[in-house]
């Protein structure tokens, strides 16, 4: 089996499952739909692991090539500029294939238990398959337009999944919000694509990167010399492309949809909003990294600061949220910010490319422990029937498996050795340290806050107040079925062991092996800070006490601001409602109603008035018509005869 066929199969299996379940699911396959979806994805996972093995280990050379495994031209715009469909194999796409299929498989398995008894079970699974298909199609794209199309498909499927409980108004609102915000960002993406495509005269990734990174290539020169509002066309293009990425990855300030998107079923949150979809933005930047890095450091700077701000900002908000899924959502945002700025502190090639490797490494490990966290939170929610922290507490005895796996995940995300997060985060911090001290200190601070809020969450769920009455009422089911526990266990193994993978050997900015030296000195400080954060959380939240409230009271204004997510939503509302709506839309509407419509209506009423005047000719009486006909016929005949003579 060749590489191309293999990958094609990986991608198309979920599509087949989507079509099968989407068309026949609800009527004929209702009870089997979960098994069908899971099986197809299981095959995909096996195949992708095999592909990764083939690519990474059976490769004899020292260098990981970008391989265009298969390509077909789909639409041709002009000579050289075409939309292609194909498969691009390189280290990051292979890694993404593994991540996406594994996490998706876990979610599929988990959903077998979690979604059991849902009325639209088959629909759910068909959406999951669609999502997986689009994500896989996105990561193997050969063409920037292919990415865009699958990007939109990802948007659609996330819209469908967030709005899965469409009978709930909040879910509908959340799905709409997610869709509109990401669509808005995608507009930027599209413009960016067009700018890049126009400058490089191609949409193909390989050619695009090659043309825009080669020193003195005519494309690069024209792209950098054409300027608009003080920035070059290339900068604008890249920034606009990044805008799309920021929208999908929930970077500040386009993050507002992510917390609301937690309205979807929890496994979906794990799949979409933790492990796969949101990293699409990171993936996009990583895909275009050579251009960013070599040709346009300015854009990279912007991306970096966006990442840094997002990381810190989200971490602070996460400390104040009480909805466990929202805490996790903000932590996701924070971690994505980490990945983002890690990319940007990196250089291209060799040792300088540490940040790139670190970012991808963090993406990889984060997928495991974040999925684990979400699935664990899902188990808790499944058990408690509530998202709120105040309804929880003391669950460690009734849910032992969940408790242990959740703890592992928390340790991993906090960066405690030897868990996965430690290694990746350490690499990021090292890279940041080399590049930019300010970023490094902010990142350190964020790491501490991360440890704090994760353990705040952990203690609030599993310790704190002892077994409240609420969750004793319905002990008809236990911790969850095995289909829910097994993914937790598998993912926790991943969260423990993923960090030991010598990631630099596989993924690096230029495809060469990168040996990452382990620097103990650089590792000590983050660990101390993380332990400090955990200790603080233990102090505050291990047992029920007044300290958190006191702290909140002492930080009144700041706490409230963080609790209200720094009023970003309100700001958007203010901008859209007060400014755009009142100052632009309403005058425009007035103009439309009174001037545009008015002129049309005026013409129409003029015609109507005239028509009323001549309407009496049309009496509906046949003899009137006959008389007109008679007179007209004779008139015309007489006229014709007169003219002829």
């Amino acid at each position: 089996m060749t590489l191309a066929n293999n990958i094609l199969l990986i991608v198309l299996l979920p599509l087949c499952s989507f079509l099968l379940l989407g068309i026949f699911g609800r009527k004929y396959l209702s009870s089997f739909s979960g098994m069908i979806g899971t099986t197809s994805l299981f095959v995909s996972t096996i195949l992708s692991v095999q592909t990764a093995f083939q690519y990474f280990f059976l490769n004899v050379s020292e260098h990981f090539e970008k391989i265009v495994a298969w390509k077909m031209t789909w639409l041709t715009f002009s000579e050289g500029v075409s939309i292609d469909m194909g498969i691009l194999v390189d280290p990051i796409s292979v890694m993404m294939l593994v991540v996406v299929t594994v996490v998706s498989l876990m979610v599929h398995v988990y959903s077998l238990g979690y979604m059991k008894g849902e009325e639209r079970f088959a629909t759910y699974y068909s959406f999951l398959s669609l999502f997986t298909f689009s994500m896989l199609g996105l990561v193997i794209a050969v063409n920037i337009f292919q990415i865009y199309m699958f990007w939109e498909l990802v948007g659609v499927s996330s819209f469908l999944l967030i709005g899965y409980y469409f009978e709930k108004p909040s879910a509908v609102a959340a799905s709409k919000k997610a869709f509109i915000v990401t669509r808005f960002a995608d507009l930027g993406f599209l413009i960016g694509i067009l700018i890049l495509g126009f400058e490089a005269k191609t949409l193909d990734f390989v050619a695009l990167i090659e043309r825009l990174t080669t020193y003195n290539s005519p494309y690069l020169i024209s792209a950098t010399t054409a300027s608009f509002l003080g920035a070059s066309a290339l900068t604008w293009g890249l920034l606009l492309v990044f805008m799309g990425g920021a929208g999908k990855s929930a970077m500040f300030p386009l993050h507002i949809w992510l917390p609301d998107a937690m309205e979807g079923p929890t496994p979906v949150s794990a799949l979409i909003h933790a492990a796969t979809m949101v990293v699409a933005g990171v993936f996009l930047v990583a895909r275009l990294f050579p251009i960013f890095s070599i040709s346009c450091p300015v854009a990279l700077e912007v991306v970096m600061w966006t990442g840094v701000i997002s990381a810190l900002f989200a971490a602070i908000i996460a400390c104040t949220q009480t909805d466990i899924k929202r805490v996790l959502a903000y932590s996701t945002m924070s971690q994505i910010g980490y990945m983002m700025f890690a990319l940007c502190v990196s250089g291209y090639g060799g040792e300088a490319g540490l940040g790139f490797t670190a970012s991808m490494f963090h993406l990889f490990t984060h997928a495991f422990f974040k999925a684990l966290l979400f699935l664990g939170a899902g188990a808790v929610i499944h058990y408690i029937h509530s998202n709120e922290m105040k309804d929880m507490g003391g669950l460690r005895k009734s849910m032992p498996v969940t408790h242990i796996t959740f703890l592992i995940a928390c340790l991993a995300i906090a960066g405690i050795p030897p868990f996965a997060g430690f290694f990746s985060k350490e690499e990021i911090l090292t890279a940041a340290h080399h590049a930019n001290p300010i970023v490094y200190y902010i990142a350190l601070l964020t790491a501490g806050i991360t440890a704090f809020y994760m353990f705040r969450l952990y203690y609030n769920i599993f310790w704190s107040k002892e077994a409240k009455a609420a969750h004793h009422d319905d002990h008809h089911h236990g911790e969850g079925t095995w289909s829910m526990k097994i993914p937790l266990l598998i993912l926790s193994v991943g969260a423990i062991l993923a960090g030991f993978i010598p990631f630099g050997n596989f993924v690096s900015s230029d495809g060469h092996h990168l040996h990452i030296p382990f620097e103990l000195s650089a590792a000590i400080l983050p660990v101390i800070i993380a332990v400090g954060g955990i200790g603080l959380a233990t102090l505050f939240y291990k047992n029920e006490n007044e300290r958190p409230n006191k702290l909140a009271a002492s930080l009144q204004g700041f706490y409230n601001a963080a609790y209200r997510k720094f009023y970003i939503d309100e700001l958007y509302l203010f901008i859209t409602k007060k400014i755009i709506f009142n100052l632009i839309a309403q005058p425009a509407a007035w103009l439309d109603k009174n001037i545009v419509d008015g002129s049309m209506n005026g013409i129409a009423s003029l015609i109507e008035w005239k028509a009323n005047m001549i309407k009496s000719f049309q009496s509906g009486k046949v003899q009137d018509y006959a008389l007109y006909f008679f007179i007209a016929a004779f008139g015309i005949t007489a006229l014709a005869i007169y003219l002829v003579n």
Partner: protein
Amino acid sequence: MSEIPFEHIIFLSTALFFIGAYGFLTRRNMIAMLMALELMLNSVNINFIAFNKYLFPDTIDGLGFTIFIIAIAAAEAAVAIAIIINLFRNTKNIDAEKADHLKH
């Protein structure tokens, strides 16, 4: 034939045609309108035969046309009467003044 001018036959048919036209335009009863229509058709037939006989006696095409017109007139009268009867059945009225439902 030679005793009377050819025009007189044509005048006769012309007069008959306009009598029919007048009847068609003024009669309110649909059946009466149909009768007026038959008069007009007949005046055309007279014309055809007269032209054929006196101007082009070497053929009988005009006569053929007359026969076709008569056949078609029969079909037309039958259809018209079917429509009138159906209209009467539905509205109990065959006054052309009142049959203006399509206008509304």
